[in-house]
Structure formats: structure tokens, C-alpha cells
């Protein structure tokens, strides 16, 4: 290794870029969180200031929690996200295993077909999806959302996981076959543990858009019992008056569960991103 790659100037520059990016990425989040603790006047007068003892106010949180149904919204969001995530990972991994492990006619075509969804947004089909859900009586159910999100998450999952599964040693799978393991056990016991980092990567990429989505809850499940957090927060945004305290408090609360899930996956995620580099 030449010393040039480790010169202090380069290290400093790299860190400066990374820190700048982190600041830009975190700034809106920070703004939401600090303003959620301020009184309405303070939010408008000095939106960038930290809360002080004079303007510290929990009115936003009080409004949100008094609204009563917010716990239900949280529950809905969590159910939809976790169940969709589970289904995406399960079916995505199974499809990826089939594509990477078995030779059959149209294998490549099938892979391309499954990856098509990465390029074509599922929202283009909203009208058809709504008609489908109306026809099957699934409007205003969490099932409708789970089905749509599973479909939305699968293409990327299949694409990423099949690449990773191709790297799992053939010898290992064959050893399992000779020892009499079924294809299911080979998949669940031998292959899945080895692609765990990739699964975490897929989990994070799948989870965030589902949690944040406003579009499908608004169209497919806008009823009071099936509202998700993002949709629930909308009640504080009016045509003429917006209750900023409540909106900011609701959004701050909505960050927490994803943060928890992210922390769970992140260690695996980092391993997944660096696995190719270190080997």
C-alpha cells in the first residue's frame, strides 16, 4: 500500500464529505424532532432554535395521544409493515433460491420478469389494484395493504437475493442432498443462514417505503380502523389550519418504531454491504 492512500489530507477530505452528507440527511429529522417540543408561536418565530424552558411545550404530544386512535394507527402500521416484510423475505428468498439453484426452461426470462417491478412503479397500477380490491371485498382491510406491499417489495428482494444465493457453495447444497435433506431443509437450514446479511439489506430497503407510504393507505384503507400512522397524521393537516404541533409530534413518534427495526437489522446490513469487499 502506498502512503498516498492514507495521507491525512485525504482522510480529512473523506470525513468532511461524509460528515456534510450526514448533516444534510439528519437536518430535516432533527428539525421535526426539536420543533415537536416547542409551542406553536416558537415554531413559527424561530423554527431553527432548540427548545428553551420558556417555549418548551408538549401540547403536540398531548393532542396526538388525546386523539385516542393513535395507538391503533401505530398498531396498523406495525402489522402491515412486519407482515409484508415477512412475506417479502420469505417469498423473495424462495423465488431467488429457485432461480439461482434450478436449471429450467425460461429461467433467465423469469428472472427478468420478476425484476421488472424494480423499474416499473407499482403505483401505475393503482386504478386496477383498487378495482381488484373492490371486487374481492378487500377495501378498508389491512390485508389489501399487505398484499400490495408484498408485491411491491418482491422484485428487489428476488433480484438481490438471487445474486447472493448464486454465491452459496454448490458443494454444500449437494452435501445436504447426499445426506438426505429435503430441498426445503437445504433452503431453510443451509442457504438462508448464509445469506442473512443480504436478507437484512433487503429488509431495510423494503421496510422504509412501506412504513412511510401514504398513497395506498389513503386509497385502499382510509377507514378509521385501518388507518396507518402516516395517514393518521394527516388529520392534523387541514385545508385552512394545520396543527403543526400535532403533526410534528406524530411524525416524531412515527420515527421510533422504524428506528428500532433498523437497529435490529443494521449490524447485519453493514456486514452485507462490506461482505463483497472483505470476503
Amino acid at each position: 500500500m502506498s502512503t498516498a492512500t492514507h495521507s491525512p489530507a485525504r482522510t480529512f477530505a473523506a470525513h468532511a464529505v461524509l460528515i456534510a452528507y450526514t448533516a444534510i440527511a439528519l437536518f430535516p429529522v432533527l428539525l421535526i424532532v426539536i420543533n415537536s417540543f416547542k409551542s406553536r408561536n416558537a415554531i413559527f418565530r424561530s423554527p431553527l432554535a432548540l427548545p428553551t424552558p420558556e417555549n418548551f411545550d408538549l401540547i403536540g404530544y398531548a393532542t396526538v395521544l388525546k386523539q385516542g386512535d393513535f395507538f391503533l394507527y401505530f398498531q396498523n402500521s406495525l402489522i402491515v409493515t412486519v407482515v409484508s416484510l415477512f412475506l417479502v423475505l420469505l417469498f423473495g428468498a424462495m423465488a431467488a433460491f429457485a432461480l439461482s439453484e434450478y436449471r429450467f426452461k425460461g429461467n433467465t426470462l423469469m428472472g427478468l420478469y420478476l425484476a421488472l417491478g424494480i423499474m416499473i412503479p407499482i403505483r401505475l397500477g393503482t386504478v386496477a389494484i383498487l378495482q381488484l380490491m373492490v371486487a374481492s371485498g378487500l377495501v378498508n382491510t389491512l390485508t389489501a395493504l399487505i398484499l400490495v406491499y408484498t408485491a411491491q417489495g418482491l422484485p428487489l428482494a428476488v433480484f438481490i437475493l438471487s445474486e447472493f444465493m448464486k454465491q452459496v457453495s454448490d458443494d454444500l447444497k449437494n452435501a445436504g442432498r447426499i445426506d438426505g435433506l429435503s430441498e426445503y431443509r437445504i433452503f431453510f437450514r443451509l442457504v438462508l443462514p448464509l445469506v442473512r446479511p443480504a436478507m437484512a439489506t433487503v429488509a431495510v430497503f423494503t421496510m422504509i417505503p412501506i412504513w412511510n407510504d401514504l398513497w395506498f393507505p389513503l386509497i385502499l384503507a382510509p377507514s378509521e380502523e385501518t388507518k396507518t400512522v402516516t395517514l393518521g397524521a394527516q388529520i392534523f393537516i387541514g385545508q385552512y389550519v394545520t396543527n403543526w404541533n400535532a403533526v410534528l409530534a406524530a411524525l416524531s413518534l412515527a420515527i421510533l418504531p422504524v428506528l428500532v427495526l433498523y437497529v435490529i437489522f443494521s449490524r447485519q446490513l453493514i456486514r452485507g454491504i462490506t461482505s463483497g469487499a472483505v470476503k
Partner: protein
Amino acid sequence: MGSLSIQNVKKSFGKVDVLKGIDLDVKDGEFVVFVGPSGCGKSTLLRIIAGLEDATSGTVQIDGKPVNDVPPAKRGIAMVFQTYALYPHLTVKNNMGLGLKQAGEAAAEIERRIGVASTMLSLEPYLERRPAELSGGQRQRVAIGRAVVREPKLFLFDEPLSNLDAALRVNTRLEIAELHRRLGATMIYVTHDQVEAMTLADKIVVLNAGRIEQVGAPMELYNNPANTFVAGFIGSPKMNFIDGARLGDTAKTIGVRPEHILVDPNKGDWKGVVIHAEHLGADTNLYLDTEKAGRITVRLFGEYAAEPGTTLYATPVNARTYRFDEAGRAIAR
């Protein structure tokens, strides 16, 4: 028990014919080595025997029973892989026991067989470890142990030594040879290394481009190669091939092994100049540019002082030269 018979097995991947009709019989207790250059189809053939790959046509029989439709676990085989292929989440003991557990063997019997195999391969201290905590040589011994506990009719080895370093390779080779002697089991072993083939085999099967070139005992292949391919593949350094016309012979090609050429500083058949000399201690390999026979390799036993530029006379041992026709087939002497 433990015989294998292959009849007219062919295998194609799409338009590519990997195996073009293989017929082979292996007797009970034989150690058979498939050898050939990479891409010759030897691993594919092994995988067809194991049942990991379906033959496009032809039949495979183990102990006289066709096994084309029998899944790998029911064929009574065990396989050792080049990359060890140990289950990373299981201990050494469970790695060895998994196959038997799947087959529904009683716990006590599994325990007993693991005990026997681990003693045989000196694996007792490692039984509770996971593969990640073992060295390469130990992992390969575990993989062999996993095969032994199954007490198979047929052992299949897929280049088991290729991932080991040179010293370990010699040791493990010895262990496999001992294992074969002790168990008396039928073993099929795939390698691209002709030294492994020569040292281990009762019978060598030389494959090239999806066909069997020759089957025979190691010394038979060495002494009576059927064609130029086998002649060139078996033996190291490689046999010298000389254009028959240059030597005034009717055969298309004349083959002489480097160890069957004598040199003398003063007189001999082919006058030549030393281009390069390899001094290995036990052997000396000389590369000579000769006027009559072109570039030839000579292997001399022991030390021989010859530096590049020296003029030497080389003389082939006439009884040990081989003659090949236009198609590369050996002409009977």
C-alpha cells in the same frame, strides 16, 4: 457389495455435449480414479453417479440395480467435496451424524459409528467444535469422516486434495489410501493431478473431451498408452513427441519419455545443446535443442552437472519408444 456399472451415459447441457457415451465397470473394492484435464467431464460423471445430476441418456447401476431414478441419499453413496462442504452451523459430531439421523438410524448406532470414524481419523479432540474453528486439513478429515460413518457401498471423492497445501496433500493422500485398504470399500476419485491418480488408483480412467481415452492399471497406462493423449497425460515431465518423418520412421509420431533418454557428452544419436537445466536433487531435467529431434526434455536421475550452452548427445532407449499413427493411436510393437 459396492460394484458400479455405467452403460452408454451421455450428458448434454443445452447444445454442449459434456459426456459423449461412457461405458465403465467398477468391481467391488476397487479404487478407481477419473483423471483428465479440466472440462473433460470427469466431475459431471461423478455427479451423475452420485445422482446430483441426471444423465441425458444411459443407465447407472449400483450393485446391479439401476439407480437412475433413485435420489442421492438412497443410493448408498457418500461423497467428499473439494471445498469440504461442512455444515457451518453444526459441530463436527453433528456434521458426521446428520446423514444417519436423516435416514432414521438409532442414536446409539450413530454414536458408535461416529466413535469409530473419529478414532480412525483422529478427530476425537474436535468433536464439539464447529467447522470455522478447524484448519483446512482437519476440515477435510471431518468431510471424510462424514462419508465413513454412512458405511456406503460407494465412496465418491471430488478433487478432495485440491484445496490443501502441498505437504498436507501428501499426508491426506496417504490417509485416503490407508482408509481404502482398511475398509476395502469401493472408491471413485476424481482428480486432474496425474500423480494422485498414479499413487492411489487400482484402475485409472483417463477422460478427455467427454470420452474415455483408456482404462487400466497405473503401470499399464504408463507402459502401454493407447494414444498420444494418454501418453502425454500420464508421466511427468511429459513424454517427448517427435515427428516420425524427421527420424526417418514410417509412424506419424514417435514418443519417448524423458526418463528413457540417455545422454553422453561425446557420442549418441541426437546432438543437441542444453537450453535450460532444472536441478531438483533427486532428478535433473534437461531441455535440449537437438538438430534431429527438435526440442526434447530429458530426465536424469540424481545430480548431473550440465549448464545451458553445453553440447550433449541424447540417445533414446529403443525398447521404450512408442510409435503412433496419423490418428494418434499407438502402433503395436
